[in-house]
């Protein structure tokens, strides 16, 4: 059972700002940025001030606060630093929620249940040392549940959800804990559904009938199942595998066969770690003289054994091998996941591009018939003032 720990740090920019200037620690603090020509609060130490509030209004609520400009670069640097610090505990650390309220997921592998609390405290301590604030930590075997547990947990008291108990743990909690649309929560409340448990008692079909895809997602979430793929970008150490021969080998076929087996083994490891190789290095130790090595960075990372084998053989052929070989070593540097999920899940981007072409083509002849409907004043009391229909502007 793989355990996931999620570390939740509320008001991350505030924590960073206070870490960097300790004299700010005891005064309320507002971090601001300019937005539409107005100073707007990005983060605040006082819960009465919500991000997005205009500065002059925030000052009314929190008159004695210090005001400083927000420096996102500083946050990014701190976040990078923090990820590295947590990365020494686990090879896989993923950012689930960006600032202001940061959630970092840490894949803990298979720790014994008795060690969980200790690990949570260890994580919290790492964060405290870096940032000076104690984060709340949630542990579960599913990332979303772990994230929710972290949101519920109090600082210093990790919340642990045992496998199989997710639904029971979620049941008494209010619906708005789930990462779902506020409008959906409101509609559910209209049906008299207020706790997550109330939702799990409904059949999935009914939810889907009422709310469509969102209902299906809600059903899964309410049972503590992750509706979305969870990817942990691996900042992991390289994989190394080698073969030492009984005696010096000169036969290229023997070497090739050995490489093929290594490739298979490494592919298996990669598969197990859920990774692909980005850079391959092959080094050979000749009977006499210094070792020789060749490496290659891949344009497209690979995890397929056949492809790895082909690549390694190509490297072997490229090496100027004049002597008998005593051993060979293959080092694979795994790839970090560069593309975001959004990009991978967006086949409609190309469709949209095609559609845009079609619209442009049609615009010449039928342009006037395409309208854009906008909710100009969604809260207008006279219904006709709510919507504006206008010709769709051509791009």
């Amino acid at each position, binding site marked *: 059972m793989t355990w996931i720990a999620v570390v939740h740090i509320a008001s991350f920019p505030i924590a960073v700002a206070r870490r960097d200037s300790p004299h700010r620690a005891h005064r309320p603090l507002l971090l601001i940025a300019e937005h539409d020509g107005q100073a707007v609060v990005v983060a605040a130490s006082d819960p009465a001030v919500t991000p997005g509030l205009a500065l002059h209004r925030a000052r009314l609520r929190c008159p004695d606060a210090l005001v400083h400009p927000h420096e996102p670069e500083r946050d990014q640097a701190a976040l990078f630093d923090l990820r590295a610090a947590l990365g020494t505990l686990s090879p896989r650390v993923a950012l689930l929620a960006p600032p202001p309220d940061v959630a970092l997921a840490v894949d803990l592998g298979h720790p014994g249940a008795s060690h969980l609390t200790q690990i949570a405290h260890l994580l919290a301590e790492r964060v405290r040392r870096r940032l000076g604030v104690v984060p709340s930590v949630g542990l579960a075997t599913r990332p979303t549940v772990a994230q929710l547990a972290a949101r519920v947990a109090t600082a210093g008291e990790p919340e642990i959800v045992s496998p199989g108990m997710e639904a029971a743990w979620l049941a008494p909690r209010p619906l708005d804990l789930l990462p779902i649309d506020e409008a959906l929560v409101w509609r559910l409340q209209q049906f008299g559904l207020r706790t997550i448990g109330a939702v799990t008692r409904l059949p999935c079909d009914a939810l889907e009938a009422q709310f469509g895809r969102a209902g299906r997602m809600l059903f899964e979430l309410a049972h503590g199942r992750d509706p979305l793929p969870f990817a942990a970008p691996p900042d992991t150490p390289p994989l190394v595998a080698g073969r030492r021969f009984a005696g010096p080998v000169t036969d290229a076929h023997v070497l090739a066969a050995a490489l093929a087996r290594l490739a298979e083994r490494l592919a298996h490891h990669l598969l197990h770690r859920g990774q692909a190789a980005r850079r391959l290095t092959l080094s050979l130790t000749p009977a006499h003289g210094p070792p020789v090595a060749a490496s290659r960075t891949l344009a497209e990372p690979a995890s397929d054994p056949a492809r790895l084998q082909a690549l390694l053989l190509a490297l072997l052929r490229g090496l100027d091998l004049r002597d008998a070989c005593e051993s060979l070593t293959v080092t694979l540097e795994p790839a970090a996941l560069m593309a975001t999920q959004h990009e991978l899940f967006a086949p409609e981007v190309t469709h949209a591009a095609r559609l845009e072409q079609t619209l442009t083509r049609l615009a010449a002849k039928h342009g006037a018939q395409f309208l854009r409907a906008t909710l100009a004043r969604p809260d207008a*009391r*006279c*219904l*006709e003032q709510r919507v504006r229909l206008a010709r769709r502007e051509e791009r």
Partner: protein
Amino acid sequence: MTRFWPHGLPIEVTCDALATPVAVSIQGRRLPVARVVERWRVDEGWWRRRAWREYFQVITAGGQLLLLYHDVRSGLWRLQRLYD
């Protein structure tokens, strides 16, 4: 089709003593009102064009769901929306 008339379709409405609709005539067809689901009053915009309207969401005897309003200043009734 849910149909929406931005400026209201002129209709004729018969009311009871409490100014609640009892029958709606749309293009000559008289539809008795079975139930008033919701009613509300809007009185705003006095500084530009005052909108003083009594809105009624009603279900007719034939089961149609309508949204109509009485423009108090002109005394006219309008059909705003036919739900479908």
